[in-house]
Structures are given as structure tokens and as C-alpha cells.
């Protein structure tokens, strides 16, 4: 855990800034991971729904286009979100706008999946290492 924790911390420090995020690791990471796998059909989850509202292959797009696609998703950009890097078993809390602005430095295609949600856990953005985007929204089933 120590090596990968340093790797993600270094990325966050470099592209977001030390004081602009809160690390989510250890038990807090495990709690968030368990919660998300119980609510959304992410890889390894026991649940099979809900279906994604948006599902796109962005592998032929430049990073700038992927960033713009994230900006277009119907979620508040000023929300404080939790980003998980499940391959590294670590996460961070920070504003979604900062995640989007710094995506190129936070997500390494080929290597990383990132899961993004807020404290409501009604929606989740998944960008996987093959550059597939999925957006899940539990809002309709909850209303």
C-alpha cells in the first residue's frame, strides 16, 4: 500500500496542490469502496444495476475532449467528490471542478480506473483504463 499511496499522493500534490484535497485511505477507503460496490455495477460489484445513463468509448478522443465530456455531465461541478483509484486502493476528496481540470495528471490511461461520486452516492462517474466512460444515476430510482 505504501508505494502506491505515495504515487497517488505525489500526483495529487503535483497537479492539485497539497492543501486542496483530503486523502481517503485505509478504513475510509475500504468503507467507500464497499459502499460504491453495493450501489453501482462497477467491476467486481455484486449488484447488476442500475444501467449506465451514459456509456461511451472515448479511446479515440484526445484528453481535452474527454475533459469536456466530463464537464458536460449533469452533476454539480462545485460538489466535493470522492475519487477512488481502486487499483491502488486509495482515494481523495476534492472539488469535482479540480478533478476535471487536473484529469490529465490524475488519470493514466492503460493503468488507472477512477470512480467519482459525491456524498449523496446517487451518481457515479467511472472512467476505466481502456478509456470507457460510464455515468450512473440512481436519482430516478430513488425519487
Amino acid at each position: 500500500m505504501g508505494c502506491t499511496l505515495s504515487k497517488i499522493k505525489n500526483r495529487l500534490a503535483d497537479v492539485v496542490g497539497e492543501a486542496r484535497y483530503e486523502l481517503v485511505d485505509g478504513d475510509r477507503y475500504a468503507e467507500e469502496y464497499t459502499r460504491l460496490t453495493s450501489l453501482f455495477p462497477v467491476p467486481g460489484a455484486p449488484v447488476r444495476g442500475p444501467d449506465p445513463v451514459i456509456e461511451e468509448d472515448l479511446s479515440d478522443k484526445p484528453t481535452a475532449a474527454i475533459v469536456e465530456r466530463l464537464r458536460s455531465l449533469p452533476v454539480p461541478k462545485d460538489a466535493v467528490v470522492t475519487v477512488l483509484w481502486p487499483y491502488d486502493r486509495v482515494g481523495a476528496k476534492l472539488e469535482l471542478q479540480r478533478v476535471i481540470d487536473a484529469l490529465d495528471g490524475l488519470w493514466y490511461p492503460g493503468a488507472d480506473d477512477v470512480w467519482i461520486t459525491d456524498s449523496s452516492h446517487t451518481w457515479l462517474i467511472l472512467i476505466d483504463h481502456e478509456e470507457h466512460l460510464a455515468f450512473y444515476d440512481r436519482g430516478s430510482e430513488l425519487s
Partner: protein
Amino acid sequence: VADKLGENPQRMHDPETGTIVGEQSADGKAGWRADHGHFNWWDWTAGKKGKGGRYGHDYYPEDQTGPHSKYPGDFPWGAP
């Protein structure tokens, strides 16, 4: 990619067989990982996408998948 891993790469092992199923440099900028049905590799040491970085996914029949990373986070990256 192998020449970009540096002196202290992190490795991912399949705990059942002890097989190495992934390696990456300490900063994560270069590496490879075997997943179910495909093999991922990345080299972001020269820059990111469109700026000198290279990466890919090599696919093979899923029934030919050997030891691999399973689901994200099942096996940790760690010391060799």
C-alpha cells in the same frame, strides 16, 4: 516498457500461483498489467496522451486468460 520500470518497480502478484501479473515504475508512469482477456501497457514517461506518451491494450481470447489482476484492487501493487 520494461526499460522504463526503474530500479524499484512495484509488482502485482497472483497470490494463488505467485505469478507476477503486473509491474510498474515507482511513479506509475510506466508499466504493464495482465487483466482478464487483455494485457495493458503504458509509458507516460515522455508525456501524456498526444504528447509523447504511449499505451495499449492487447486482447486475446478470454478462455486463454491465465493469472491476472482480477477486479481492480483485488491484488495490491507492492514491493517485488
